[in-house]
């Protein structure tokens, strides 16, 4: 397959007949956001990913599933800059991202959560989310130290106290202060959005498991990603919590984020995604709408071989 081609053509070609429905469903949202283009990844003699090829379109919820050791997380890590593919490319908004440093990838607009929760354990929930918000802030170290960069505040940003108000009118307010306030406000909003605002000031380590999972999502959302990747967000959840999570994932999409979900739990994946890519032994074995994938004999075989995961 040639390296460069028109994006639309790629979509049409790759989404051959069997996922036409999905294409129609997300057609309005349109263009390709991320392309995994014939990616192969080898570790020594082990082939972790073999010529994997799919794309994520703006505004959809894509599920990436497969039995244990199918290469889901490896694929994910390649997309977020942890591994560099041996062969093939990964393009985000048409730009190659393979080999880019993780923090740069985040700045490009990809955020992720971790399968085994990795919060900053001694920071409060709010601070955890604020670290995410900081990714979009512009204040430099010198800006923090000397606060010389002043911004003329809008009416609602002016302090209530009379003296300070006139001071702020004359000298402006430092960008650092404004960003800090905005970050705090936005972080609270995000905590409310994922439903854990009641314990915002508690240290992350002391939060209950379900809260920690949601906090990770809030932290990832705080970096204002175009694409948010959730690595087994439902691991360890009971059915009621899974139901909640499905609602949350849909609301995230409604905010305008594109969502990639890696999951074991078939019910959750089938219930929430627009399209599904199935991996087995590092190879893509199926792609299509949830209904198609659920009917696909290869997928059924793969999951029958791994009864734990079908549960």
């Amino acid at each position: 397959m040639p390296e460069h081609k028109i994006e639309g053509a790629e979509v049409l070609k790759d989404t051959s007949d069997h996922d036409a429905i999905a294409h129609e469903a997300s057609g309005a949202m349109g263009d390709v956001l991320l392309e995994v283009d014939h990616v192969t990844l080898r570790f020594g003699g082990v082939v972790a990913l073999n010529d994997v090829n799919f794309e994520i379109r703006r505004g959809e919820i894509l599920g990436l599933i497969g039995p244990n050791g199918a290469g889901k997380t490896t694929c994910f890590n390649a997309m977020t800059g942890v591994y560099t593919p041996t062969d093939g490319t990964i393009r985000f908004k048409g730009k190659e991202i393979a080999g880019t440093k993780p923090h740069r990838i985040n700045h490009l607009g990809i955020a992720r959560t971790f399968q085994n929760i990795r919060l900053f354990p001694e920071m409060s929930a709010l601070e955890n989310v604020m670290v995410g918000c900081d990714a979009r802030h512009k204040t430099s170290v010198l800006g923090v130290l000397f606060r010389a960069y002043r911004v003329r505040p809008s009416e609602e940003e002016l302090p209530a106290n009379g003296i300070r108000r006139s001071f702020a009118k004359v000298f402006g307010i430092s960008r650092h202060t404004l960003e800090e306030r905005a970050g705090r406000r936005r972080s609270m909003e995000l905590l409310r959005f994922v439903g854990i605002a009641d314990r915002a000031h508690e240290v992350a380590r002391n939060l209950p498991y379900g809260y920690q999972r949601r906090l990770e999502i809030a932290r990832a959302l705080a970096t204002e990603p175009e694409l948010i990747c959730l690595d087994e967000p439902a691991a360890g959840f009971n059915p009621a919590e899974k139901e909640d999570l499905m609602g949350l994932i849909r609301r995230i999409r409604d905010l305008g984020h594109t969502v990639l979900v890696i999951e074991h739990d078939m019910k959750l994946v089938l219930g929430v995604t627009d399209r599904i890519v199935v991996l087995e032994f590092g190879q893509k074995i199926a792609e299509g709408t949830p209904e198609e994938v659920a009917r696909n004999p290869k997928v059924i075989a793969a999951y029958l071989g791994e009864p734990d995961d079908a549960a």
Partner: protein
Amino acid sequence: MSQISDSIRGLQIGNRWDRAPKWVRSVGLLLVIAFAFYLPFLNVLPFAYIRTDLNPTGSDWASVLFLIVVYMIAAVGLNVVIGFAGLLDLGYVGFYALGAYSVALFGSPSSPVVEALQSRFGLSDEWAVPFVMCIPIAIAMSLTAGVILGAPTLRLRGDYLAIVTLGFGEIIRITARNLDNVTGGAAGITQVPVPPGPEVDGRSFFNTIDAERWYWLALVILILIVFLASRLEHSRVGRAWLAIREDEDAAAVMGVAGFKFKLWAFAIGASVGGLAGLLFGSKQQYVEPNAFMLNLSFLFVAMVVIGGSGNIVGVLVGAFLLTYLPERFRELQEWRPFAFGLALVLVMVLRPQGLVPSRRRAAEIEDRRHEAEEAAADA
């Protein structure tokens, strides 16, 4: 068990301070600062017993206070590196030396560098770079050294960084000793300039006799540095450092440029160290390589970790204790390295979070202890 109750007691004092109304905290802070400025004249019994010049052989009280504050400045700077960013810098004395040598090399009319400039540009024998200009030079030199040293080494594992910085500290000292025609070699440099000021009683304002003026100058700088350091701590920069310390990979995925922030910490620490060295060299009016032995590096690290790394108040306490006690008990000076080696081991083994710990650090260490205990119970 006593450790836990200790750290909880520590937390309570901190919490009470945090919960106090803002005006109480401001007044309290002002009182502490006012008392600090008054300290050189403290001569009311029984408080006067803290003075170091009670007997004729004791060291000059104001000079001791000055040294304490200079070491506090250095410790606050090193705390940015160790306490905030979690990097072990064992060559901090190198930056301190660079600061002192910058002011000596450029500010002293008898330094080889200035003499070369004099003959190159046909200037008078009296000419030297003015003191005020030496400040940016000193900061720039130590900052540049920090960046040059940090850029290649900060990507290394933490314990490698410790060794490389240790080597750096020694390289600076040995170079200063060996390069006779640039640094004056082992003989050092005299006539280091002092800050400008009005003449009082026929002497310059900052002279060798009125040490309390030096102390006040250093105190003002210390207050400024502490103010700036706490600004950093409670900002996106402080959060980024904490995030890197807790989970560097997760921080990177959240968009925190780990290397950049670590380098900043290193550079900030270096320039503060340079500033402290500048004050020291200027007060001494004499700079020589033996003033910058490696032991001083260990002393700085000890101040930070014994006080409680990450907590500025703790670091100030650590710097105070480790500078004041040896001066107060000067007759035991020979025992000083032994005592602080012993103190390092004892404090770290019994109270790894330091005497006045940062609440966050204390919690981190408490956590790890539980994990270790659980792991031991499992095995």
